[in-house]
Structure formats: C-alpha cells, structure tokens
C-alpha cells in the first residue's frame, strides 16, 4: 500500500520546551522521533496524556517547529519550502482537533466556515460552486445541509466534530491529522464518528494520522501504530501485531490496563 517514497518522513526529531506542570515549569523533551508514513496509510499514534503525541501532531502539521532532526514531506525538506509551497502544504495537510467547539468560529455559520476554507484553498471557485460544495460536504459527513445557516453552538458535540471534519475535507487534503477526535464525545456518538472515519478512509483513500489514547479504537482502524511514552517512540509496527503481541514493556503494561 505504501508508495516507495513516504509522504511524511520524520527522522531524529527532537524538541524541548517548558511545560507548565501545576505550579512549576518542567522541561519536556521529545527525543529521537522517527516516523514514516506512506500514502494511503492509516497510522496510529498511541500514548497517554503527556507522552508527547500532540506535539508530534503539531510538528507534522507544522503548527510548531522542532529543534533537531529533519522532516521531509513528499520528499521535500519542509524547512526549505517557499512561501507558495508552504501554502500548498497547508491545504495538503489538515487537522481535526479534540474539541470541535474550539476549532470552529462561533460567529460564522457552519456553511460559511466550510466555504471559508474553500475560498482560501480553491480560489478558482465561484460563490455558487462553493455553496454547492459546502452543502455536499455537510451531507457527506452526515449533516442536513439545510442546517448550514446555523451557528456552531446550535449543534451537539458530535455534530460539531462532523463539521470540523467537513471543513478539513473541503480542501481535499492528502493527509488528515486527527488529534483525539473522539475523546470529548459520548460513547454512542464516538461510535458514530468512528463509522464516519471508516467510511472516509474507504471512500477518500486519505492518509490519516490518528492520535489517541484509546488502544481499542487504534486497533480497529489503524494499519500501523507508534507507541509513545515520555517523549519517545517505544515501539512501532503493524497495529495488529503490536497490540496483540507487544515487545516493549511499557506497551505491555498499557495494553494490560485497557478494559
């Protein structure tokens, strides 16, 4: 499935920063992060809170920089991208966050939120085409397009997460980075959004980085998995193998604790 040249190639990435821990700051170190993701792969990044997985997501999406190592995207070193190429990168790589309320503009209707990202990344489209596309996207993620005139607060958490996904898909990204997209949702809604992801993976052939602390969800949808603990990758491999026959002591402990 993976093409010979990986889509995302992180080698020896390190980053240290002060993280506020209760009252004092502590230095957090991300060390020796090697991640390689082929086109069309669904890759899980599994770890507990504070393991550094969100920081890795932010590095992949270039929301944050790093201190050492190198990051190649489609074979290009991202630090050498021109302005124009950086812009193309942004429409190629989209992110879905844990909290769908925080990621939508509360003062924009949900349709205009979706249209806004079309306006930025698909400037050739007329307004009418943007409306049609936004409606089609809302429908694709399971929302009634007629509710497009409503504001984010009028939707439930699960619906808001659908909107965030529609917005990310609007620009037809190659890579979708999902940072704990299910964690703030109720159990029955989690299963709905999980179904949406599975459909998305099948129909759109997206490359997905799925960041989660939920072993069971990662087992169900990911081809490969990286296990993170304390700023390092402790184990990686095919999800089925790693999660049924862990080689690392930490992975084993984590799996044992899962209900």
């Amino acid at each position, binding site marked *: 499935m993976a093409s010979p040249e990986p889509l995302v190639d992180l080698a020896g990435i390190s980053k240290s920063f002060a993280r506020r821990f209760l009252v004092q700051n502590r230095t957090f170190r991300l060390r020796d992060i090697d991640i390689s993701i082929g086109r069309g792969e669904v890759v899980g990044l599994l770890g507990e809170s504070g393991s550094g997985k969100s920081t890795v997501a932010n590095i992949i999406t270039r929301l944050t920089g790093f201190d050492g190592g190198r990051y190649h995207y489609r074979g290009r070193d991202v630090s050498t991208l021109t302005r124009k190429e950086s812009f193309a990168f942004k429409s190629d790589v989209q992110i879905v966050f844990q909290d769908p309320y925080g990621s939508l503009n509360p003062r924009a209707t949900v349709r205009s939120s979706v249209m806004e990202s079309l306006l930025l990344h698909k400037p050739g489209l007329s307004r009418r085409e943007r409306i049609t596309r936004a409606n089609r996207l809302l429908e694709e993620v399971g929302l009634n397009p007629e509710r497009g005139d409503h504001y984010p607060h009028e939707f439930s958490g699960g619906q808001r997460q659908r909107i965030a996904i529609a917005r990310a898909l609007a620009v037809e990204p190659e890579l979708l980075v999902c940072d704990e997209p299910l964690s703030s949702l109720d159990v029955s809604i*989690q299963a709905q959004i*999980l179904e949406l992801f599975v459909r998305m993976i099948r129909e759109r052939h997206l490359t997905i980085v799925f960041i989660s602390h939920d072993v069971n969800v990662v*087992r169900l949808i990911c081809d490969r998995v990286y296990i993170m603990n304390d700023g390092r990758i402790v184990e990686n491999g095919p999800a089925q193998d790693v999660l049924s026959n862990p080689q690392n002591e930490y992975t084993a402990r984590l799996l*044992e*604790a*899962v209900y």
Partner: protein
Amino acid sequence: MDEPLLKVENVAISLRHDGRSMVAGVSFAVNEREVFGIVGESGSGKTLLTRTLFGLHDDAFLSRGSVTFAGETVPLSGYAAAMRKRLGHAIGFVLQDPFSSLNPTMRVGKQITEAIYLAKGWPMGAERTKEAAMALMSEVGIPEPKLAFDQFPDQFSGGMRQRIVFAIALSQEPKLLVADEPTTALDAITQRRVIDLILDRSRRHKLAVILISHNLELLRQSVDRIAVLYGGQLLNIVTAGEIGTRTIHPYAEALFACIPARDKRLADVRAIPGEPVAAGAARIGCAFASRCSFAEAVCREAPLPVNPGAAATFSACLLGRGVH
C-alpha cells in the same frame, strides 16, 4: 436475603428553581459488600441522581420516593441534611476530579488526620492518629507515606491524589463508598490501578461500592450489577454477566454494541443513530424510543414501568425486552 444496605424506591428528583422533574421512577437496591455500577452518557442524570441521593446537590431535591440506608428510612423533609450527616461516616464519597477535592494549601497528612479526628474524635491522640493516617496511605498504595505525609497535593500526580482522596474517604470506615467517575481524569494504567484498589478494598473490608461511570465495559469487568440510566430514566438493571450473553434492554444492548472493546472487530462496533436525550425534557413513555430500532407506538405513549420493590434485575422496556 438480608435487607439491602441502600434501598431507593420510586425516587424522583426535581430542580429547586423551577421544580422541573429531572429524574423519575428510579428504584434500585445495593446490598452489603456489593459493587454496584451506574452507567449513563452525559445528560443521563447519573451524577444528578447520586449527588442528590447523598445530599450533595444544592440545586436539586428528592421530590418523591423513599430511601432506606442501613435499615433507617431517611425522611424526605430535610433529606439532604440527614444524608449529609451520614456522609463522611457511614458513606464515603469520591468525586471525579482529584484536583478540586483536596485543599491545595494543606499538607496531605493533615487532611487525612483531620478526617480521622472527625470520624473517631480527638481522644485518639496525635501520635496514634498520625500512625493510622500513614497506615491508610500505604494501604491505598502511596509509596513512602512518611515522606508523602508532609507534602502538598500539587506535589502528587493525578492518580496519587485520587488515592489520597480515597484514604480520606476510607478513614471513616464507611459501609458504602460512592465513586462518581473516579478515574475519568486519569490515564489508562492509573485508571486500572485505582479501580483495582477500590475492588480490593471492597473485597477485604466488606465495603459496598457504587461506581458511576460512562464506560460500560469498565463496569462490566468490575462490578456485580449495573443500573443503566438514559434521559433521566432507569431503563435497566442487569448483572454484569448478562451483558453480551442475554437479551437485555435495547438501550443497554445498543450501548454495549457501541464500545470498541478489546475483543471486538470493526463490524461488531455499531453506533446508535441520533443524539442522546438529556434528562429533564418532558416526556411520556421511554426516553430511548426515538433512537430504538425496536420502538413501537406503545413506547411513546405508555408510562414507563418502575422497578417494583427495587428488585435485583429489571428492564423498563415497554416491549418486554430484557424482562426475565
């Protein structure tokens, strides 16, 4: 069978400011030594129910029903105050958030010894109280209690803080421990340790436990019986072993099918269509009818059955699914 430790019969809970009924027709009983689970999604009323039942809710009150604890019926007038007298003695309560249930300006040792004083009175003496506190701390798995005794809550991790809260709750030697989502703020490994700690304590000290969680799989593996709440209604009480093996209430069944439990394949995880309804909406019939694949006209029209005599197992399904 002996009298249950806690018996809740046909209880309804209303909000103080507008009298709106939030939870109605709830009956269940918790036996001595039993580990009893309450499961529900957000808005199901599980936290409102337990907080009001144990006198911890200022904005809601018991508007109907009867509650018997340890053989004594607690009168509805002055209910919260009467229940609060039992809190911290016969009943221990552990909240979800270990960050807010400890005093951040007081050393943890002091907080535990204070609880012991309150439970047993001053005559114990400072030395013996301190010893008792440290014994409790090591019992709940806090390493080096001598060192930990003089530290402040912020010097502990979330899991350790939750253990301190447990030490305080257990210092009273309660008959019943109520834990409302005690592990939601914790990591998987810590969660398992804290749950195991509760179960172990229950087994060794004949402690009855009410464990409230949104995680049906966690409860299925941990408790004896589970009450399932949805939209302010008690829909089902099942034994843990019945889940996945027998026909249970359609909502409980659907909730179980949602969970990507460890031995499930993707095809076995089935979402429930629609959105959960919140407690407090005026309704006739079954709250789950709008999402239930079995629903018929009767589900929206008939009054919901109430668990008679707080029987051990119960299904409120108007179509009789899960009724044994």
